[in-house]
């Protein structure tokens, strides 16, 4: 689903926080259909809050969040997750008491009445991550960090969302696993999916994404095309630190 102006995700004037104070203020950002966008910034800048606000997991949010013409700020979290957006959260948060395939199936919960579609989605996930096919009956708690990350990404894909959201997928992973994640994300981008990627690893973000925002102190500090950054990594790092 894409809006008339070609944006998969459009955020305007987003304020969000917990309790009395806003963690992020006056956020404007967009992800065009088929685009991969990175959201960078130092710890505590509010990047995770932005993703959680999109998913409806932040109680205090004001502003507009549009996916495919629908304003997500009017929907409860479980409706948002039914095809508008899906999240790979920080730390993966798999349902560790269940198997790999169970986690994937749960991702497609809202599509359960269309079993053939669920099977097709499942097949596409196994195509993206062949190793999961072997591991599919294993309890997800028995997997390595990198494998769990694959399951988390798979679970996200299973709901066939308009926008893919990922929160620091490289966290705690060995370099090889990080490469695997990066390759998968690049493949998804090539398939025309729309991605919003929160990351701390600048190199990973630049590899995968077309455009980059920098969030600092709760506000957008910078927006640049990824290829413009490649040449001068320094400008990005400076933006980090205000």
């Amino acid at each position, binding site marked *: 689903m894409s809006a008339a102006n070609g944006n998969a995700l459009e955020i305007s004037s987003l304020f969000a926080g917990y309790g009395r104070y806003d*963690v992020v203020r006056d956020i404007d950002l967009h992800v065009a259909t088929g685009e991969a966008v990175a959201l960078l910034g130092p*710890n*505590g800048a509010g990047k995770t809050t932005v993703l959680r606000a999109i998913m409806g997991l932040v109680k205090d949010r004001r502003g507009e969040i549009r996916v495919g013409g629908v304003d997500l700020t009017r929907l409860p979290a479980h409706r948002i997750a039914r095809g508008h957006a899906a999240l790979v959260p920080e730390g993966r948060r798999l349902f560790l008491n269940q198997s790999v395939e169970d986690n994937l199936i749960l991702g497609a919960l809202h599509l359960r009445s269309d079993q053939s579609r669920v099977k097709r989605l499942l097949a596409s996930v196994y195509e993206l991550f062949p190793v999961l096919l072997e591991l599919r009956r294993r309890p997800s708690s028995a997997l390595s960090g990198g494998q769990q990350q694959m399951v988390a990404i798979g679970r996200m894909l299973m709901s066939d969302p308009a926008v893919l959201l990922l929160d620091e997928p490289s966290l705690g992973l060995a370099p090889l696993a990080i490469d695997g994640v990066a390759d998968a994300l690049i493949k998804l981008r090539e398939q025309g999916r729309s991605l919003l990627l929160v990351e701390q690893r600048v190199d990973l973000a630049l590899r995968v994404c077309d455009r980059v925002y920098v969030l600092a102190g709760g506000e957008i500090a910078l927006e640049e095309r990824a290829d413009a950054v490649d040449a001068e990594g320094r400008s990005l790092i400076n933006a980090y630190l*205000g």
Partner: protein
Amino acid sequence: MSAGALGDQPLARAAPSGVRGRPRWRSVVTVSAIALYVLGTYGLAHGTLYIQGLVLVAAVFAVLAVSLDLVAGVLGLYSLGHAGLFALGAYATTLLYTNHGWNLFVLLPVCVVGVGLVGLILGALSLRVSGLYFAITTFVFTLLLTAFASDLSWTGGFGGLVGPIFPHFSSGLNWLGASLIWCCMAVLLVAILISLALRRSPLYPVLLAIRDAEPFAAAAGARTARVKICMFGLSAAMAGAAGWVFSFQGIVSPGQFNGPVAVNILVMVILGGINTTLGPVIGAAFISIFPVEVAINPFWQEVLFGGLFIAVIVAYPAGFVGFLTMLGRRARDRLRAGSTVAQGRPAAAVSEPAGRRLAPTEIASVEAAAREGAAHPEAVPLAIEQSPRSPAPAGGGALAVECRGINFAYTRGTPVLIDVDFVVRQGTIHGLIGPNGSGKSTLVDLIAGRLRPMSGTISLDGKRLERDGAPARARHGFMRTFQAAVLVRELSASENVSVGYYTRIPRLAMRAAAWPILPGTRREAGALREHSATALRFVAAGQWADARVANVPHGVEQLTQLAAACVAGPKAVILDEPLAGLSPTEVEHMASILSELKSAGVSVILIEHQPRFVFALCDEVTVLDAGEVVVSGPAAEVRTNDRVREVYLGQ
């Protein structure tokens, strides 16, 4: 602190402490209340037997509820064992008097001490089982006692025993009325005063810290296990006294101390208002008197009762006291309605607004404070000033921290730190950087005593401390901050900072229960406030001293933690990602604070992610990656190291 853009102190209300002149006003109120209480007791002592009976039961349960609140509300240890402790007091009194002729007044301290000791055991239990399971275990304690009381012949079985009769006043004091009323109201008054004393003492913030963020309390030097056990002992002692009083009302039987009673006491606390001085009393009065007084069909009365439970707690989760506070606030707001300008001014004195956002003027004032602080650094906290250390001689000097051969893993097979050596020279700022998951936080937890290494040594200021816990580090002058939010949200910034001063207040835990009447405590409290105030001013958060931490911006919370770490005049402070969530201006301000600390001779260990900050500020830097030290040395050298660029910047 320059005024200017800071304007009024928008949020300087809420928490009562820290305002000059308040204590005197409070003492007047307290003394008047006590006088009224005594008058009321006199009236009751001359009332009808019926009313006296009611009051006796209500008062006894009020004592129980107050005692339970001390552990449940203040420390978060939900006990369903107080009915059992209560039973112990009542049965002990009755049996020792009836069967062995013990003097009734001797039996009071016997109950207090005896049941108190049992309470120490239960308190120790809370260290092993926590939360729900602790409640369950204490519940079983009550059930067991009830079962034994029902089954053993010498406890009178189901029918119970006839309790002793409280001696009446001698003829000279007859005018006072019923002696038993005076006795039970006196016990209740003592209980309330103890609760009040604890809440007004500097121990209270520490207790709440143990409840909400035990690592923070431990890092401040509180031996949390000991404190919990002792508080439980105190609480049990009060329950024992309640039992003693209760035995005089006639019959002591198992049905009065069973499971439902245990739950009822907790209900009284929650319904009345948990963690308040008078909430438990109100709750106890309501639950004891309501069923008797509402003279309708007994079944409908219970239905109404149950309905009230639901209605009150759903509408006012803070209980009756919450309801009363809301009424009071509304009345106060209405009185103020005329004088408040609507624009740009925050809603008056509301501490729980539904979703009030930080107004632009307030954001500006936080930024302005940070800018001011960076440009004109405040004097260091009093304690640091009072015990200055000479700045370290360049390139040498004693070691503040010396870690050798540290190995650590959370679970077998996944080592987090591998053979790490880490050395910090006194009086320097030492940075610890590395990618996420490299083990930095773990190393800091080991140095701060929250964890124990599997092998290796940790020496702080020359003393081997790796086997000791976090409180020992604080007592040796090593304070730390945490990355996550660890402050007590319902207390003010100043009160949270005072927790950091714990190790400097002699025998606080022992003196807290009688705090207001002990000599010199007012002076101590005043000095403590001064220390907290200077510490907060040092970090340029002085204007937030009386604001509740729940209402302050994230950056101010970080600063408050830092102030708490500095207030006692530490030798070294360990900061775990202090810059998280700070704006660029606030970051600059933090840099100036840390430089100040260094010039006062305090060593600083810093975990951070922002490379420019770290390399500009730190004298030496250690880089960790995947649990191993990559390189360690002077900042300038480390910065240009190739491996560091590779590892840290991912390039």
